[in-house]
């Protein structure tokens, strides 16, 4: 049970880490000047 909870925690942390830029960075292409919201 403890290991299952740890696995779930690792998965959540990973998903949060990976998808964070989608909520933090404005839509921009490589060719445009960028700005970060954070």
């Amino acid at each position, binding site marked *: 049970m403890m*290991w*299952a909870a*740890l*696995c779930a925690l*690792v*998965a959540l942390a*990973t998903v949060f*880490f*990976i*998808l*964070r*830029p*989608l909520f933090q*960075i*404005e*839509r*921009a*292409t*490589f*060719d*445009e*000047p*960028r700005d970060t919201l954070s």
Partner: protein
Amino acid sequence: MNALAHFCLVLAWLLSLFGCCASIYAARSRSERWFQVARNATIACGGLAIASVVGLAALFLQNDYRNQYVWQFSNRQMDSVYKVTAIWGGMDGSMLLWAAILTASTALLAYHSASQRRALLSWVLAIANTSSIFFLTVVTWFTNPFRYVKAPFIPPDGNGLNPLLQNPYMASHPPMLYLGFTTFAIPFAFCVGALLAKDKSSDWIRLTRTWTLVAWCFLTIGIVLGGHWAYLELGWGGFWAWDPVENSSFLPWLTGTAFLHSVMVQERKGMLKIWNLWLVVATYGLTVFGTFLTRSGIVQSVHAFASTDFGWIFLLYLALIVAGAAVLTWRSRDLLKPERKIESFLSREAAFLINNLLLLSICFATLWGVMFPVFSEALTGTRQTVGIPFFNAVNGPLFIALLVAMGIGPLVAWRKSSWRALRRSFTVPAIFGVLCGAALLFAGIDEPKAVLVYAVCGFIVASLMLEFHRGVSSHRAATQESVVSATAGHLRRHHIRYGGHIVHLGVTVMAIAITASMLHKDEREFALQQGQSYEMGRYTLSLVGVTEGQRSNYQYVQAEVGVRERTSGESIGVMRPQLRFYPRNKETTTEVALRMSARDDLYIVLAGLDDAGTLVSFKVFVNPLQIWLWAGAFIMTVGTLVALVPRRSEAVAPVTAEYNSQRVLS
């Protein structure tokens, strides 16, 4: 713990897939946000794969024999260090380590890519993640090291690790090799990524210089450590047997070395682009091919992993790499057009090309020797193998030619050189080389091959010294500095070039040592009773006594051999070769007694005892200049580190939209 480590592995595999897709989407849509998502996925993938290896290490340290791999490759008597190194004692763990190092290298690349060009980097991350997908697929679905034992109870103890692998060199040799193999995936990703991004510049070469040098350095250290392990552990007095497993690490080293040289021509002159693409593909492909060779069981080797039934997957991946590279070469033929042509045969470009052809000839000859049993069986039905004499006979002259090219190449000017300039550069070194050869002939060395190699080595050392002296002199003339500060300033300014020269010096030292230990080796077999002596070279060996004993996981018989100088009778010391028996593995190994000196190595193997235990058989080798082989490798490493010091002007430029989009066609 097993479940968590396995979960990390599966998650890493999923992330490599996601990272690859996100990178391709970012490259196509040119989306900054998705580039950052791909970057984070790549970093997380590396972190999770490393966590998986750490988890396996913890299972070994906890003696968790529910895990089949832990049960198979460790036992309670083993030292903690060897419990950790048992991770790469078998197929499953070594593939996991390989995948973890690869994904960690890719993660490091992604972490440092924040300030680099997105258009290029997103394709690079896509290719690098493709490599990760392949190796993580193999580990997750074919060689999973987190399987449970198929037994209704938890085994009280494990099988234990092969005694030959319980050695400090085996602890460091495989990770070094894997670091070398996997790091070459980064220049491969950059080269292919640059073509996919339609990047006309040669910036990727500058960006990957560090990766290429680091990969080459790790591979060199890994190969030499393997040779040192074979020398100390296998008890045959040699360090390189042209075994298929050894060759599988040597082949990418050869193409990697060729790439390191020829890529300079592309960087400076915009030539050899297709050549370099295929060299980097060959280097990466040969690491995969080596894995196929050692895991498929198609060739016999003294230390290959057991035959497995999924060798085909490596071959399939290799076929995909080659087919992909062929399509890319055709698609990018305009980008790959050379910007210039070689103007003269007397130029650095031509010298590099000759160096490349020689390295590839050695590579081809070695590959042919490795694959010959397979070809012969396919054609005649009988498996015929080629041995050490074949490799030495074919590769020996090629290595000598390579040494000559190594002496000439660095002193030839770029673009075009004149005969007059060449005479000026080479007269003194050539005379010095001839004098070296003459002196050795006069000293009684009558082996023509040896004299030739030593003369060529003398030529190389003299040419390197002369070039350095000229450089410092011109620096002094320009700056009016003292000799010391001019030397330091000149070295600082041209450290990449002199790093290369130091590597060449290391190769020269190694060439001398290899020639001496091969051609002037003294090898004897004899038996002694207690108190008897035997004279060999400059040594007198006498048997002082025989003892028996027991350690935690092995029993041993040890001979005490007194060593004296033959002429003066002065005592040098007592050497203690052993025969060890590991009851759990039912294996007997020899523990070599070795006395190293600058002049020669005295290498004593206890071959056996008669039934009464009074007559002791020995195999003894005197290997001249052997220590210089390892010293040469050390010099090569130092040279690579000098070349790795970043240039002052290489400070990373801040990213601007203009910088990101520059030189990109689409």
